């Protein structure tokens, strides 16, 4: 399994070489600075500000939470300036301000709602038969805004999908869709495939699976064998993001023409557009206008 290395620092890269060790003692293995007697947890924003938004080596931010410790929010990037103007013309005096973009932290038990039940049942379901264990398969559990997100290791996805569909305590019969998200700043896990599952049997329970793959190895196993409804959705995700779903019966482009170069929904693919002249003034194309992201 690949531990998600959220930041861009070299230390988290080295930690990915030895995931088991890094996981077992909560980051001390990955610690490269001699400050081993530091308190284990820090307030995330303080840490982020000290390090300019990048996670410190001492705190791999995206590992499964040890019981009893408060997990850190996940830094997925940083924002510069006071207003985030795309043209960089921040004259407020706060132009050098750097603040991290924090995604919701991993959840600690109890998750609340039906989420604990689902997690327990999945742990049991993965326990028997398959050689995939829950600890290997589920890298991180996020409960945010009343939704459960399981970050699943890509090689474990088919087993997890099968368990989710077939286990009587889970019975997620329907995969309502696959969506992709591109995070170019997340080294090693740039491309995410997001699956939404629905269990009708258990009264419309919904969970989300999130699977990531690095940009230079864009492979995720297909779940079409388990959920035939994912067929076109995976084709769309391949078309738009370039994620290759291994084992898909016919992974071809679906929305773009067959001979189209590139994958349009990736962040490095330009929106395109031409400047428009209107009453003497020129309006630039949408992606070149000033924006505040």
């Amino acid at each position, binding site marked *: 399994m690949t531990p998600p290395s959220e930041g861009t620092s070299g230390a988290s890269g080295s930690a990915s070489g030895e995931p088991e060790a890094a996981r077992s003692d909560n980051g001390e293995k990955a610690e490269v600075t001699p400050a081993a007697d530091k308190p284990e947890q820090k307030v995330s924003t303080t840490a982020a500000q000290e390090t300019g938004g990048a996670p410190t080596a001492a705190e791999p931010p995206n590992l499964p939470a040890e019981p009893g410790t408060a997990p850190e929010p996940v830094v997925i990037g940083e924002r510069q300036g006071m207003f985030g103007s795309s043209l960089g013309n921040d004259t407020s005096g706060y132009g050098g301000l750097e603040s991290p973009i924090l995604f919701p932290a991993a959840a600690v038990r109890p998750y609340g709602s039906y989420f604990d039940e689902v997690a327990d049942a999945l742990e049991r379901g993965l326990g028997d038969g398959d050689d995939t264990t829950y600890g290997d398969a589920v890298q991180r559990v996020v409960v945010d*805004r009343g939704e459960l997100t399981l970050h699943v290791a890509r090689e474990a996805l088919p087993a997890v999908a099968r368990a989710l569909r077939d286990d009587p305590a889970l019975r997620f019969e329907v995969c309502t*869709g696959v969506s992709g998200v591109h995070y170019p700043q997340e080294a090693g896990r740039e491309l995410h495939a997001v699956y939404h599952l629905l269990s009708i049997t258990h009264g*419309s329970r*919904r969970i989300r699976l999130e699977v990531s793959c690095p940009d230079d190895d864009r492979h995720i196993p297909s779940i079409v064998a388990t959920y035939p*409804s994912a*067929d076109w959705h995976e084709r769309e995700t391949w078309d738009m993001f370039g994620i290759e779903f291994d084992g898909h019966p016919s992974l071809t482009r679906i929305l773009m023409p067959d001979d189209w170069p590139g994958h349009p929904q990736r962040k490095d693919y330009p929106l395109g557009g031409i400047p428009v002249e209107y009453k003497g003034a020129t309006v630039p194309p949408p992606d070149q206008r000033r924006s505040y992201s």
Partner: protein
Amino acid sequence: MTEQTTHETEDIFATSESDRDDAAEGRVFTASGGDWESLAEEAASIGEDRIVVNMGPQHPSTHGVLRLILELDGETVTEARAGIGYLHTGIEKNMEFRTWTQGVTFCTRMDYLMPIFNETAFCLSTEKLLGITDRIPERASIIRVMMMELNRVGSHLVALATGGMEMGATTVMTIGFRERERILSIFEMITGLRMNHAYVRPGGVVQDLPPGAIDKVRDAIPQIRRGIHELELLLVENPILKGRTVDVGYVDLTGCIALGLTGPILRSTGFPLDVRKSEPYCGYETYDFEVQTANTSDAYGRLLVRFAEMYESLKIVEQTIDRLQSTPGPVMIEDKKIAWPAQLSLGGDGMGNSLDHIREIMGDSMESLIHHFKLVTEGFRVPPGQAYVPIESPKGELGAHVVSDGGTRPYRAHFRDPSFNNLQAVAAMCEGGMIADVIVAVASIDPVMGGVDR
């Protein structure tokens, strides 16, 4: 008379050498109107059993720019594949370059027969990201429900109308569109536009109902009900229609679940799954309505479900009218950091910002002007995270998966369009049947290519 060409092993639409090589496998006929008889004779003279017919994307019976690739053995379809993408407009990509409020203007154009649903799905997801789901004013939710249910009737009417037209029944089409026009006229009065409204916004709806709107809706309901009944009399017991639709496009419950089919297709198997009941949103749990099902699993059952659902929708609309009269505004969230400051009003030169508002920002308060300018040009920030809210659209489960990175624009907005998913059933519904049944089966899915291709 349009041109009609036949070529010995030459495909005039071939774009590459490999395409031409493919064409060398068999003879390619290009039919674009004209003398079909000679074409058929010529095709028959080759003595080839296997014919691949490319139906669409420009074909009056494929429900829009849908391309059906049918492999035929005589008149029997042995293999059916759907080719989509001819109406891909990059709406999801474009939304990443506009503010959250402007995103509504894009997504309303996806499935153009259910614009209000597209808007609501996006807004509910955005509101969940913002954490303001509980703070949406009640009147705004009631208006959303009223608009959605009217829109559901309009969408089902088009489904039946175009379905009838594709089977050759133009009266069905004219009645369907005539009744839908009443709904569009209500929409025009309330939102200013017949389609592509951008009326539902994150935080509520853009403006309150104009004077007279409730009366107009109340007056229209009996007329629409009468029109639906007329259509029902024309269709439901019609022997020709039954001959065309009964046992056509059959998909049972197992198939529906495996293929993720929702909406009338799933309910025609007798399974009463409706997001309005199972995961209520916009206060649907407080309305009195029934989930309509049929038990035939075929195109005829879907037709019955659509009829029954229209009557249920009108029942809900009547309930919303009663509530609207006793529920005063506002129709937009009180939070001034989210709600646009503009108050629209109708002036002598058309719709625009109200004079009171102009007076305030231009004459009285510089801060109001700055606030207005910043909120409209820059937009509001949405806390980082992701959300998915499903709603029950006329075609099935419609959901928006939205991701925010804390900025003023969506980091990613993906729509789970029911038509996109449901079109996967074309092969299951059509293979083994007659070519004429393909038309009926596709019409019973009711795909709208604007939503499929986005």
